């Protein structure tokens, strides 16, 4: 049962197309599994569409011709309507990843994304998504049964979407579909008793905060 959802403002920014691809993918992965957020998205999209298509203020065009001139417009219409109306909506393929000896379906949002090979340290293994977004980095992360991530905090934010399995931290236990947003005000050390597969997005390397764990800082950079 999903208990952790993206907050409303984040869903609104998602609908408006204002977020980096990695965050969009994380939110989309949650929404695919969450009826509640799907409904919220439907309403937000409607509202956004109304807003965008009802703006009367054309001041944005101060230096630009507001109206296309008629010839240009007619040419465009003629060009468009000379095409066939034969668009076929292909059934999207469902991508899978092998983890813990089974095939797990991945969110549709990852369909056109490539990722590097999984590389592991102990019970942790991750593959970086090839999104090319500077400081925003995202990974598929597997935690083997009994595995844990050392205590850490973040300079920016860290998003985890649980794609399969479960894990706990000091605050909660999480299950499939949960969307977990942490920022620098939180530290946590997730533990997964039965193993799990996550999608993670972080905008900066986490900073490890506890004694011994400080030695593990390179792992911190390794994970997120």
């Amino acid at each position, binding site marked *: 049962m999903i208990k952790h959802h993206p907050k409303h403002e984040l869903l609104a920014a998602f*609908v*408006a*197309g204002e977020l980096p*691809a990695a965050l*969009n*993918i994380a939110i*989309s992965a949650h*929404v*695919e*599994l969450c009826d509640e957020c*799907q409904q919220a998205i*439907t309403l937000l*999209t*409607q509202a*956004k*569409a*109304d*807003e*965008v*298509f*009802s*703006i*009367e*203020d*054309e*001041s*944005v*065009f101060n230096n*630009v*011709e*507001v*109206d*296309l001139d008629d010839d240009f*417009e007619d040419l*465009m*219409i003629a*060009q*468009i*309507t000379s*095409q*066939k*109306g*034969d*668009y*076929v*909506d292909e*059934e*999207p393929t*469902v991508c899978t990843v092998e983890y813990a000896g089974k095939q797990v*379906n991945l*969110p*549709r*949002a*990852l*369909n*056109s*994304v490539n990722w590097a090979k999984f590389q592991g340290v102990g019970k942790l293994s991750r593959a970086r998504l090839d*999104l*090319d*977004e500077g400081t925003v980095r995202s990974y598929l992360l597997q935690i083997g049964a009994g595995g844990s991530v050392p205590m850490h905090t973040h300079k920016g934010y860290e998003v985890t979407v649980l794609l399969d399995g479960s894990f706990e931290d000091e605050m909660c236990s999480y299950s499939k579909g949960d969307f977990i947003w942490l920022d620098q005000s939180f530290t946590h050390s997730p533990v997964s008793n039965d193993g799990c597969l996550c999608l993670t997005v972080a905008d900066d390397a986490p900073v490890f905060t506890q004694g011994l764990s400080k030695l593990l800082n390179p792992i911190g950079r390794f994970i997120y």
Partner: protein
Amino acid sequence: MLQTSNGNMNQSQVENKRSMLTPEQSAELKQWLIAVALKRDKKSFALLFKSFAPKIKSFGFKQFNSEALANDLLQETMSLVWRKAHLYNADKGAVTTWVYTIMRNLSFDMLRKMQTNKEDCLSDDIWPIVDAHAADVDTEEFADHLLKQQLAKYADALPEAQKQVVRGVYFNELTQEELAQQLNIPLGTVKSRLRLALGKLRQQIEENS
């Protein structure tokens, strides 16, 4: 406010205000889009185009700060409206919402192309437009969706007149009365065309399964 069929945006209204579409305007947009879906009606398309063009350009200009790119966005968006009209499902939302998602998706991919070295088009998988439940392979909805796809394939082989009614009823989810009105033919004709078409479809599906 979108322009209505009778045309020009009243300049005195163009100020810092917003107004939602009236129900009549929404119905009008829907009627035009359905006419494009069913009949590839160029006149209706031109009306849709003129309604949305200034808003799409304005949106594009804010995104790209370039008039040329705003025009690209306009052309790409309206091209998809033309090519995908038959996939519009009036039950799933307003025309404005449908056009918005097409425009937002295109604009996201364009921006991404400008900001990264990537040529990937992620948007349609991030914000699936037609059916969001591809992963729920077990659900009835998905079975329905598959059936629709099959139906779509076979329906393409039907004569134009029969194709129109099948699409209208099963894809645009119009009632037979609405369809009769839309196509400007008697209700009885809609019924008989549909009966003929369904007979042929059944035969084809049986032969192929």
